[in-house]
């Protein structure tokens, strides 16, 4: 591969301001990075076609990793998990992202993908139902339903974290619970919205919010320290919010339809259900 020395670029001297120097530095960095990337990616690019690429909604990544490990051990089919928000994956899949399977955080996005011909209707099902939880790092804060409801109704908190209801199913569920308590528009200045349920969790975990609606799976799953999450929690009755049904589907553009079907079949097996139950999902 011919490597051109970027420092010999003619005309570089013509720029004199520090900003042009920075642009030049960035340009060099870009050139070097492009060269490096070409060298790294070129021989390995054929590898990407074997194995499965699975897009997983952020809240389900931990169980998905465990499930895919078990699946790999049983079948020898390699699985690569990509984590992100359902809305982002929806946009990417609509524009031809190379995933075989999509595990969404809702059912609407899968239904839409099926309507538009991006997902296969016969390989579509609900793989898990999530649970919403109100969490406070203070162990004495949420003793039972009565105290939890009182804390919310009387606004006895500095900041209440939740996911943005427009983008995250757990945010919409949290909004349902607040609406059920006639608090749909209460405390607008004390409500902190994350763009994902992961961010809502982070706001409470970092101490920036003293109360937050998060996913039960986040409280249960081992975090950094492998310790149970500190504090107190309240599980709102599931009749208070829309079901957090999470749907999966095989994508039309998948190059490995047989392996994708095998993975989806495994997702419905007792082995996979047991892993999900441990993370606080209902089958």
């Amino acid at each position, binding site marked *: 591969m011919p490597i051109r020395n970027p420092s010999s670029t003619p005309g570089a001297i013509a720029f004199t301001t*520090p900003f042009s120097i*920075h642009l030049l530095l960035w340009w060099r960095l870009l050139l070097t990075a492009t060269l490096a990337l070409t060298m790294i990616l070129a021989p390995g690019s054929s590898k990407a076609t074997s194995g499965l690429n699975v897009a997983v909604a952020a809240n389900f990544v931990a169980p998905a990793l465990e499930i895919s490990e078990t699946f790999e051990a049983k079948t020898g089919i390699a699985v690569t998990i990509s984590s992100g928000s359902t809305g982002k994956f929806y946009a990417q899949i609509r524009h031809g992202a190379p995933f075989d399977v999509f595990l969404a955080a809702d059912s609407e996005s899968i239904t839409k993908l099926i309507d538009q011909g991006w997902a296969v209707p016969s390989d579509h099902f609900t793989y898990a139902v999530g649970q919403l939880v109100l969490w406070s790092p203070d162990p004495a804060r949420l003793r039972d339903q009565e105290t939890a409801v009182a804390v919310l109704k009387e606004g006895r908190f500095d900041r209440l974290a939740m996911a943005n209801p*427009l983008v995250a199913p757990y945010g919409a569920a949290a909004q349902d619970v607040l609406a059920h308590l006639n608090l749909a528009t209460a405390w607008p*200045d004390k409500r902190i919205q994350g763009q994902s349920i992961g961010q809502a969790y982070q*706001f409470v975990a970092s101490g920036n919010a003293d109360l937050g609606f998060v996913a039960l799976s986040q409280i249960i799953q081992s975090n950094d320290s492998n310790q149970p999450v500190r504090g107190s929690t309240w599980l709102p009755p599931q009749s208070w919010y829309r079901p957090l049904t999470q749907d999966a589907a095989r994508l039309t553009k998948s190059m490995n339809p047989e392996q994708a079907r095998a993975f989806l079949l495994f997702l419905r097996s007792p082995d996979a259900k047991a892993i999900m139950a441990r993370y606080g999902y209902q089958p």
Partner: protein
Amino acid sequence: MNLDNTTLSSLLDHSATDAIALTLRLATVTTIALLVIAIPLAWWLSQTRSRWRAPVSALVTLPLVLPPTVLGFYLLVLMGPSGVIGQVTDAIGLGLLSFTFTGLVIGSIIFSLPFAVQPIQHAFESIGPRPLEVAMTLRARPLDAFLTVSLPMAKPGILVATILSFAHTVGEFGVVLMIGGNIAGQTRVVSTEIYTYVESMQYTQAHWLAAIMVVFSFAVLLWLALLKRQARGVLS
């Protein structure tokens, strides 16, 4: 806000126009604060022979190369109840600054600092020692010389710094996402609003708002290019 709301409201909903107004407010406040900080800082950097010059210079440039997520994450931690900034603001009765407009201003100042300091510093450096020496021989006090000689001569650099600070703050995303919390009228700016539209699959709204950003950014850069050409014309 001077936008014509009747025509805009047919294209953008209330939330989007609010976000535009807040973004302009944030960029204005940040730019003014940045000029107050950057002019003395750039002056010091251009004149000093102190051994602190190199580390301070590197520190000022750091936000240029750090990913905004790093800045945002550290700001979130620092402004939180166990962080240094959080403990100070809490002790003096301001409460926590994360998820507030003030918090966003602080984040934006740090984020855009190199864009304000570097053009001004360069302008001061390119003046050279001669005009100041002349002013001194005319018995001007140092502050006098600075205000009547250096500052006017650095005007083009200060103008560039103003435009860049403003535009860069308008385009800020990662830091706001980390310390914002998406509160209408406080921290919901245009860039995060576009993100919400895309994530919630409202692509038409996303398109309109994104198109406004592209037109705005292009206009700013075009202005900057014309200014530079003008300045070069004056010098040659």
